[in-house]
């Protein structure tokens, strides 16, 4: 465990010195604060921030993550020359990436909401947004780690990361929309709810939506949606799905890391 801490500390030091992560924090801070500044009410700011979380957060975690893992390759090789368990080294590597990303978002997006607590954003909505953002950071950092460990070619790795981002944010929803249109005559609600769980971005969106956009959830679909995700059980299911999206890529990356010949 000592090794984990050491590597983590090294990673954190590395990242905190990195101008990108500071800029990332400030960007969230600036945008959220700006939205309040320009007369946004709590719910409006939440919705704008939701768009940001769904689009920007996965992009940054994926691209920045892959580049970071590639950049720390020499450091990893150096450590591997020492009697260090690979699993602990891997844990340090991942946490050193994921924790600063999540923390940067939490600080950048959280502070404006805390400052403007009286602007009318519901506590549940803010909590869901911050939770979803942290979950997405962790999940896409895991995906980035896996991608970077899987492909040696850096350009290819970054390309893969971008492709993953596009697939998760836009293409997947397009396919779901296509399925909804193509099989419109069938009772599709439940299968579609299942499909929502299979994409971390959709899980995050659904989590936040059940907390703040209740008025939009109407009709049979809305009711089912509400019944499925609006309850404590549903929220837990969504949270578990997000965690699975951290765990599965991590396990794959970890296996790769342990068996790989550096």
């Amino acid at each position, binding site marked *: 465990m000592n090794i984990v801490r050491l590597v983590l500390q090294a990673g954190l030091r590395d990242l905190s010195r990195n101008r990108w992560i500071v800029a990332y924090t400030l960007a969230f801070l600036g945008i959220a604060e700006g939205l309040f500044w320009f007369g946004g009410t709590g719910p409006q700011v939440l919705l704008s921030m939701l768009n940001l979380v769904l689009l920007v957060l996965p992009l940054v975690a994926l691209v920045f993550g892959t580049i970071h893992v590639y950049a720390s390759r020499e450091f990893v090789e150096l450590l591997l020359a020492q009697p260090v368990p690979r699993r602990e080294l891997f844990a340090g590597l991942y946490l050193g990436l994921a924790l600063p990303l999540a923390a940067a978002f939490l600080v950048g997006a959280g502070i404006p909401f805390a400052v403007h607590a009286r602007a009318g954003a519901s506590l549940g909505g803010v909590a869901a947004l911050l939770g979803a953002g942290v979950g997405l950071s962790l999940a896409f950092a895991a995906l980035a780690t896996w991608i970077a460990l899987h492909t040696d070619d850096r350009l290819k790795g970054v390309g893969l990361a971008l492709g993953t981002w596009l697939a998760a944010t836009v293409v997947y929803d397009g396919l779901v929309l296509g399925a909804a249109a193509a099989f419109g005559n069938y009772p599709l609600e439940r299968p579609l709810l299942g499909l929502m769980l299979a994409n971390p971005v959709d899980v995050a969106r659904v989590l936040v939506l059940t907390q703040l956009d209740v008025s*939009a959830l109407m*009709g049979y*679909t809305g009711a089912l949606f509400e019944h499925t995700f609006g309850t404590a059980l549903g929220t837990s299911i969504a949270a578990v799905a997000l965690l699975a999206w951290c765990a599965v890529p991590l396990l794959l990356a970890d296996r790769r890391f342990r068996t790989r010949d550096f």
Partner: protein
Amino acid sequence: MRGLARQAVPWHAGRVAARVAARCALLSLLVASRAEGDDLTVGRGGTYATLTAALAAAKPGDRVIVQAGTYREPTLVVRTPRLVLEGQGWPVLDGEGQREVLVIAADDVTVRGFVATNTGVSNLEDRAGIRARDVRNCVIERNRLRDNLWGIYLQRSADCIVRENDIEAHGLKQTESGNGIHLWYSPGARVERNRVRGHRDGIYFEFSPHGETRDNVSERSQRYGLHFMFSDSCSYERNTFRENNSGVAVMYSRGVVISANRFERSWGSAAYGLLLKDISGGAVTDNVFDRNSTGLFVEGSSRLEVRGNHFTQNGWAAKVLADADENVFSGNRFSGNAFDVTTNSRSANSTFDGNWWDEYDGYDLDRDGVGDTPFHPVRLFALVVEQHAAALLLLRSPLVSILDAAERVLPVLTPEALVDRHPLMRPPR
């Protein structure tokens, strides 16, 4: 708004004037009769032990004063005209779950200050807490109605006043419940400042034209907060309809004025803030539609003036079906709705002009307060959801934003003609 109604239906103006005159006459009559009649006291220390006995003895113009206490008597029927029934200290008239409580069967009767309760449920008869049957000019005011099948029931009774009553029913199923205030073939009624909770329909008008409904609160109805059919030239002002299971439904009527009401929190797949079906030539003005599944639903209605309303945080602010034509939406305010306007066709038979839309992102170079580019309120995604309900799951997905943006630039599927050419830059008022 009264004036507006008259303008809209000038052929009724004479009748309205006649009714006002009739009311004035009634008022003077009441005042006069009060002076000439006797007081009959019922209850502890009174002349009569039962209301039944007092009603049998009363002469026209008398006043029956009922002391506090619980009265369990056969259904009370008022057959003497110009009688005033007055409860002091909230006497309780108990139907014991067996029967109707009080029936007004004579003209110019006033009932005030009673608690009518517990008619019980019947599938064979419509038991009411207080019923007016085939009379004119009754006044039912400041009563409390508790757990009755029907609350106040006006049956073929003209020019009655129902005001400041508090009506409540608990825990009944829709099939085992009647309406809070029910009007059937009762023209010229005034329903004011009542509070109705938990009945099937809070307030119900059928075949009852020229009614005025003001300042009522109708909430948690099992079906509609307000339901009216075949009742021309009625007006609804400053009422609050809240958390009703299906909202408010207005059907098959002409010249209806709906103004300055609040429609709040009607949830569910068949719940509407305000549902208009086959209404022609009315006005829907200055209302607030707040957090309904569908704020305003317009079907088969024509020549409606929808002006100055505020639609906020609804699922669908306004659903205007293609069979509704020549309706004009202007000066309304749309904010925080998931969908502002939807329809079910590519043609636009209603006009949207000069509204304020929070999603409008155009500019105003000449600074006249009107945006220079038109606004298309129907989003592509709204149409998709209309056809494939399950697609609602993609609400607020980045993909949907992209599709909507693309559709706004190059409308292919959304009704191109449904457009606000003069969107306001600032919310009205």
